[in-house]
């Protein structure tokens, strides 16, 4: 088989692989959005900005402190998570009793501030981040060349998504979280510190965004605009999947990534809008999203 539908297989599989990688980031980000939305009833517009902060923290650690990729993969998400905890405690927590729209507007403002600050400091053009040595090079699979780092991103993203799923669905703290989503008053009556739980959920979810940022750093350029480029797509993906389930976010993220990759092969002009077209179609057919439940 030398050609498939008139497309050389290297190009086809290459784009599918690229789609899977983009999809991994979509999955990680929409997963965080789903957790935050479930717990706090807030759509976190700052999610893209915090993803960008994650990449920049890794870059700064390397260039200012000489801390390499592997420690940064742990440290940068912790920094972003701590930032998230501060933002949640000082600002978001004041808005829970109000209309959900205010949470969206606040995080929109925060995103503007964070991105503006980084733009002042580092300009709009990106700076490269080297691929860690252990993952340099790649495998020749016969039908395509697979860079090791890209394979690592997909595997790591899937592992982290499953880890989050396990944490929420199979552990004690996860059961508190789920219970608090259903009925906060009752969970508080049992003596569980729900505000603390909400802070942890927000911190954890934005740490996921930071983690995605570090993983993205060697693939895309580290740039102040990398967050806003991706976040609107992630919103569309959230609408496609519905915020119902963690599993749903993962599947939708990866799936949309692959579809986007295939569009780049067959109809490149549409590749930047295909996510939004998909969203429109899903809205027409299944208004609550593929995995969402109709809410009352």
């Amino acid at each position, binding site marked *: 088989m030398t050609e498939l539908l008139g497309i050389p297989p290297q190009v086809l599989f290459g784009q599918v692989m690229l789609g899977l990688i983009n999809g991994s980031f979509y999955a990680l980000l929409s997963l965080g959005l789903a957790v935050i939305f479930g717990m706090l009833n807030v759509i976190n517009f700052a999610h893209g900005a915090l993803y960008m902060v994650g990449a920049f923290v890794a870059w700064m650690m390397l260039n200012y402190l000489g801390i390499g990729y592997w420690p940064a993969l742990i440290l940068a998400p912790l920094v972003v998570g701590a930032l998230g905890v501060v933002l949640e405690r000082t600002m978001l927590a004041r808005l829970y009793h109000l209309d959900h729209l205010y949470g969206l507007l606040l995080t929109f*403002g*925060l995103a*503007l501030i964070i991105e503006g600050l980084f*733009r*002042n400091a580092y300009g709009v053009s990106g700076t490269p981040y080297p691929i860690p040595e252990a993952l340099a090079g790649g495998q020749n699979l016969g039908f395509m060349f697979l860079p090791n780092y890209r394979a690592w991103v997909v595997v790591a993203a899937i592992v982290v998504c499953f880890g989050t799923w396990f944490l929420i669905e199979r552990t004690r703290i996860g059961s508190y979280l789920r219970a608090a989503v259903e009925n906060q008053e009752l969970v508080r009556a049992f003596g569980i510190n729900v505000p603390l739980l909400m802070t942890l959920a927000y911190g954890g979810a934005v740490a996921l965004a930071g983690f995605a940022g570090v993983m993205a750093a060697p693939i895309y350029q580290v740039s102040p605009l990398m967050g806003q480029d991706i976040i609107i797509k992630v919103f569309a993906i959230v*609408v496609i999947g519905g915020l119902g389930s963690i599993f749903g976010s993962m599947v939708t993220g990866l799936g949309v990534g692959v579809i986007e990759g295939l569009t780049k092969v067959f109809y490149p002009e549409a590749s930047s809008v295909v996510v939004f077209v998909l969203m429109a179609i899903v809205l027409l057919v299944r208004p609550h999203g593929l995995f969402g439940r109709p809410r009352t």
Partner: protein
Amino acid sequence: MTAAKENTQTMSTGQKISNALSDRRVHLAGFGVGILLIAIAPYLGLYPIYLMKLLCFALFAFAFNLLLGFVGLLSFGHAAFFGMASYISAHTIKVWGFTPELGVAAGTLVACVLGLAFGSLAIRQRGIYFAMITLALAQMVYFFALQAPFTHGEDGIQGVPRGELFGFIDLSQTMNLYYFVMAVFILGFFIIYRAIHSPFGQILKAVRENESRVTSLGYNVTALKVGAFTLSATITGLAGATKAVVFQSATLTDVHWSMSGEVVLMTLLGGMGTVLGPLFGAGIIVTLQDYLAGMGSWVTVITGTIFVVCVLTFRRGVVGELTRMLRIHS
């Protein structure tokens, strides 16, 4: 005793003011004064171009407030209507040789159609989803504007001739243009004002307060919302199309999501759900942008800070807070 007496006196004054403000004749008188002020503003030392920009953005914010303030729908995609209308009006005037009024009408019409399409789609979800869907749909329009040949990508449409209104009023004369913009503004404002104070507007407010109740009364809530969305998009288009004539250009800035954010900020800052709030919000933001124009991306930081401060401490906006201060006294 004296203190209490004084208190009652101020209370009654406050009530008087408050009552007087909702009187229809006072409204009419207010409009008269407002129109007069706009008409003479260029002679008071204010730059006509600045004023025209202000009027266009105020109209944009009025249209947006119709949706957010009176129906409770937060659209994050209004830049699509604003920008697309400005592209269409610029293109029809420059390439097809339309007169300005026809160009503006064409832009407005396209925004109307686009609004109907987006509204019908976005209305299928509510609340936060609605905001995300409008944002995503608008992003689609942005990419279209980036790639379509007639919009000239990053360059935008430049050097649009101002032309002659109805074929005989020369709009390259700044004051002629100013009064044209003023007429458009008054028309748009009047349409919105009438919509808010009509039975349609009353039902929209009822939808905001209690949607299921309105449904149970036999109203078609979906159609009402789509109607309000389309009207808002149309007036937004009118503002965008007029802006293209004023600045003789249409660019990607007008259709970018940050423009959607800007109009949200104007409405929030001025006071959502108040009739005049958006005018104040637009005034503050446009003036601020003029002053900060040389500061590059600090503008983004400042805009974001205003957003955060507004949401945390100042949710009623300028006009909302003023009205509340009057009400407390009554």
